[in-house]
Each structure stands twice: as structure tokens, then as C-alpha cells.
């Protein structure tokens, strides 16, 4: 019998009501019937890639219990998080950690950096004495390649965006969580400082066995991390599988447009093709209750794409796509 998965996202749907009032009303299906799971046996690096409005942050918020899904559920070690007791929540809050996008907005500006690391140690009783607490903090800073003298005793505004995001990783290191949710953690930090952050995240997976759901709009960053990938388009999973298999051989027309739009960082590899105007253009705000979400932007749409959403089709053990072209 296979072990219970660490995390299961099961038929997750999140509907937001919009425009209540005199202008009529409607709804946005931010997330529509999304399912995936993370193994309970070995750590997983999972990247969720999608453009703005693809629902990636909403999925993260559901996993963190910050929003209750309209339908479906999130199970942690087999148990629906909506049914957690107070004690279970406390454990969950330790085992699942998050890094948000904005390294400037996550800190309280009146407290020194030290406090960001002391609070979890005290809250979760990770140290028995002040000496041990200090030792733990130094160890955590070493793990994220920060020099204690550069950061301790200083205020958030005195640190760069890259340093602040690494302090978040130091905090995570202290907790040794099972799962890290990283929502666009590098999009606001300079390129020269991104690599350090990504390498630490990889070491957390490889050396300490922490799984990670990495959310990004930047396919190249996700590719660097390897592991698995889920491509989201307007709230649904259009393709998923092994990172290399999906990026080197994207099957869904949306994934193909996405991969073809990532600019190669080399002037000898300039685009020779024209941008697919349709793929980047017409985008609906809501509606299309049935059928494939990409069909009105898809160059290869068929009549049946409007009838019902395509099922997930298994191409190989490492590759699935939701598109009628592969039936």
C-alpha cells in the first residue's frame, strides 16, 4: 500500500462573486477543479507556472487555509484541513511554511531582524535556553549564507530585498517544515541575488527533505529548480509532469505558446517567428462555464472544445495534458 500523500489538493474550486449591485453580478472561477498531490515518501519540488489570473496564488491561499475553497478540499497527511482542531492547526502552521512575494511588506518595520527569528523559536519552543536560541539563530543564518554581523541588530529597511527573502528562508530553516509554499519569492529581487535564494531552496529539498510548491510566472526560474511542473491557465491545470519532459516537449497549445514566449537570453537565439497574437490577446474575464478555458485563444480549437472541458490525458508516467488533440 502506498504511503499517505503529504498533501492532496482534490477538485479544488474557488469562485469569487463580482459586481454585486446595480451593474448586475457575475462570478470568476479563479480556480476550477484543480487536483494534484505531493508524495509522502520523498521530498518534491513542484513548480506552478501561470500568467496573471491563472489562479496560482488562490491555490496557495487555499493550501495555507487562508481562504476556504468553494468546492473540493485540501488534505494534509490524509486529513481535510477544514476539519482541523486547534491543536492540528498549530502543528500544520509549523509544518507548512510560506514565503511571499514582497520582501518589503512582510516585515514589521519597528522590530529588528532578530525578532523575526526569535518569535518562532519561542512560539514553537524550539530552544530550551537563551544560549541555545542564539546558537539556533546563527545556524539558521549560516544555512542561508548570511553573515550574522550583516543582519542581526539591524532593521528591515537596512537590508536589501535579497537579504530579506533569505531571512525568511532562515526562519523556515528553524522550523524544518515538511512543506514550503513560495509565492513568487524572487520576482521582486535583483537577478544577481536570485540564484542564492534558489540554491538555498534546492538545498532545503535535497539536504533536509523539505518539499516545496514554488509559484512563479517565470518559466525559466521554475525550470532551474527542476522537479515537477504544473501549468495553469485561467484556473485549470492544462499540463503537468516532469519539468524536463514538459518544457522540452510542451503539448498543450497554451504551454507551447508559453514556452515559445520565454526570451532566450542570447542574441544569437532571437525569435524568428511572430508572436502568436491569439495566445497573448483575447482574454475573457469570466464566463465560459463549459469547454476548454483556452479555446478562444487557441489556433487549433475544434467544435468539441466548446462542449466540455477536456479530461487529463496521460501521455507517459511523467506527463499529462488536458487537450483533445491527444486523445
Amino acid at each position: 500500500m502506498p504511503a499517505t500523500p503529504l498533501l492532496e489538493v482534490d477538485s479544488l474550486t474557488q469562485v469569487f462573486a463580482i459586481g454585486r449591485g446595480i451593474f448586475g453580478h457575475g462570478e470568476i472561477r479563479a480556480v476550477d477543479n484543480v487536483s494534484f498531490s505531493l508524495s509522502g515518501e520523498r521530498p518534491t519540488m513542484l513548480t506552478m507556472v501561470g500568467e496573471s489570473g491563472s489562479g496560482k496564488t488562490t491555490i496557495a491561499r487555499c493550501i495555507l487555509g487562508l481562504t476556504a475553497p468553494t468546492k473540493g478540499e485540501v488534505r494534509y497527511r490524509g486529513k481535510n484541513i477544514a476539519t482541523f482542531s486547534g491543536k492540528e492547526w498549530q502543528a500544520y502552521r509549523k509544518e507548512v511554511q510560506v514565503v511571499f512575494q514582497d520582501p518589503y511588506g512582510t516585515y514589521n518595520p519597528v522590530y529588528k531582524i532578530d525578532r523575526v527569528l526569535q518569535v518562532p523559536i519561542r512560539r514553537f519552543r524550539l530552544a530550551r535556553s537563551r544560549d541555545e536560541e542564539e546558537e539556533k539563530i546563527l545556524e539558521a543564518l549560516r544555512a542561508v549564507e548570511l553573515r550574522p554581523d550583516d543582519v542581526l541588530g539591524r532593521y528591515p529597511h537596512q537590508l536589501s530585498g535579497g537579504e530579506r527573502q533569505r531571512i525568511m528562508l532562515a526562519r523556515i530553516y528553524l522550523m524544518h517544515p515538511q512543506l514550503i509554499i513560495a509565492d513568487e519569492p524572487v520576482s521582486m529581487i535583483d537577478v544577481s541575488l536570485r540564484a542564492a535564494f534558489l540554491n538555498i531552496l534546492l538545498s532545503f529539498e535535497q539536504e533536509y527533505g523539505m518539499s516545496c510548491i514554488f509559484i512563479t510566472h517565470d518559466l525559466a526560474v521554475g525550470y532551474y529548480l527542476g522537479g515537477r511542473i504544473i501549468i495553469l491557465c485561467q484556473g485549470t491545470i492544462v499540463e503537468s509532469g516532469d519539468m524536463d519532459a514538459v518544457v522540452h516537449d510542451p503539448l498543450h497549445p497554451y504551454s507551447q505558446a508559453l514556452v515559445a514566449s520565454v526570451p532566450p537570453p542570447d542574441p544569437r537565439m532571437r525569435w524568428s517567428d511572430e508572436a502568436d497574437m491569439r495566445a497573448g490577446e483575447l482574454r475573457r474575464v469570466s464566463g465560459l462555464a463549459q469547454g476548454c478555458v483556452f479555446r478562444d485563444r487557441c489556433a487549433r480549437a475544434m467544435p468539441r472544445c466548446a462542449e466540455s472541458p477536456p479530461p487529463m490525458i496521460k501521455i507517459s508516467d511523467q506527463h499529462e495534458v488536458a487537450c483533445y488533440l491527444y486523445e
Partner: protein
Amino acid sequence: MLEIRDVRVHYHSVRGDYRVVDGVSFSVHPNEILGIAGESGCGKSTLVEALLRLIVPPGTVDTGQVLAPALTAGTSDKSDLLSLSEEEFRQLRWKNISYIPQGSMNALNPVMKIEDQIIDAILTHDTITRAKAQRRVGELLQTVGLSQHVAKLYPHELSGGMKQRVAIAASIALQPDLIIADEPTTALDVTIQKMILQTLKRLKQALGCTIIVVSHDMPVHAQIADRLVIMYAGRVMEIGSVYDIFGEPLHPYTRGLIATIPSIAKERKRLAGIPGASPSPLAWPGGCRFHPRCSIAATICQNEEPELREVRPGRFVACHLVETAASLNA
């Protein structure tokens, strides 16, 4: 087209002067796309704001000249953009030099039709009839790949990419000789980014204009720039053709910047990044401003600021150890 000489922009505060742009010189050739690259705080946006005379107190342009005889001919007998009178410079705006600021797609007036916004801009700077201006709007939208019916729509009816193309269409309304675009694709989805970049490339060919693109995103420059200016800490570190700079970066900072870009087009390699963090414009490091983060820094780098030198035809580098740096590429 432009000859920028020793431009310095300082912001004055009680804590001291922020030397955001601190002695920048380079030239812009006619009919090229010149990319200005660098990370946040390097002064790239402030520099173009200085060219456009948009620096307001507490900022001042302390020194420098921006010589543009081709642009000022017919308006003034002076050729330095920074010493024109306000009225003289106003005449150049939009007609000779246009600007697509960062986030310009969000600057459209939400209660005006696209057409009326562009016509307004045209009639402010040109003396043609309204009917003629209206016809021109149709042509402009076509140039940026939008259909004619967009003219009658309001901004909220357009996607981000369409709005950005409207902003570009407005900027070329009076056929400027020089277009300056600041982060034209930042915050846009990649599929849309690709369209915008291809639109800019087409404009250069169709209008024969010169375009300056400011971006922190090196892959963007790799796709569209002809030449690149790399800035760091308020100074120019390196200038060269985009092929030379990507093929053989000579400044250690440029080298680090290129080595740290993840790519799906190449084999996955461990990225190193650049150690340390960008310095503060309140107190740039002495000597070479990059030396605290540089892997090959020597004593001279701590003591003397390197000049930007032409080390090969058309190739400028500000590094004492350019030979050592070049050998790292081998």
C-alpha cells in the same frame, strides 16, 4: 543622434546627497535600439528622466550635456537638451522625442475613448485638423498591430498588452526621431511581452527612428537591442554591441549578470549569482564601485575609480583589470 556627456543627477536630503546618476557618458546612434541595462538602483530610469528634463526637486541635474543637434535643429540654435528653455524643449516633446514611461498602460484616461486620447496628444503638438488626426489614429493602431475598432473602446475594455500597445501608438503619433521606453514589458505576461518586443522592433524598421529601451531584464535586451549600456551604481560599466556583450562580457559585473540568468534554452547549470548587494547612492564604495562584489578585485580597484575606456573599436569598459576579466571568458 545623442551625445550624453558626464551627466550627474543628485537628490539632496538631510542625510546627504544621493548620487543616483554620477557621471554617465555615452552616445546613441541613429536608427538603433539602444538597451540600458542594470539592476534596481543603478540609475537607469533617472538617467532617461534627466534626458527628458523630468527631474524635479529635491533632484537636480548637477552637471552634464546631452547634445542632440539633429533633434534641436529648427527649434533652437543650442544643441544641448539640458540647456534649452522650457518652451523650446516643449516643442521637441512628442514631435522629436517621445517617452513611454514605466507602467504607461495604466496612465490612460479611463473615461476617454482611446481615439480621443491619441487625438488630444496629436492636436496639442501639431496643427492638423481633427479629421486628419482621427485618420492618423487608425494608421497608428495598425502600426502596433491593433485593429481599427480599438479606437472606439475605453481602456477597461482592453487587456494589459493592448493598453501597452495603445501607449506605444500614442508615443509614435507625431513620428518622433527618438523614442525612450522605460521597462516597456515589465509586469506583462510573457506571451504579451513577446508581442510588445516585436512591435518595438518593427517600429524601428518602419519609422526609421531610434529607440532607447531601459530594462532590468537581460533576456529582453538579448532579443531586441542592437547595442547595450550596462550601468551599475550610477556609472556605466560597459558598452558594446549586444552580440559582443553576451558573447564575451568584459566587465566582471556584466559577466556576473549574464551568468546568473536562468534559461530554458540551454542545459541546466548551477547559477552562481553575484555575492553581496547593491551599494547605496548615499555612499558609493571608493575606487571601483563594484570592487566589494568583484571576484578579481585587486588593490588598485579599491583606490582608483576606473575610467570608461575604449578597449576595442566600439567597446567601452570601466575596469582596471579588463585583460584578466577577458581571460575568464576563454
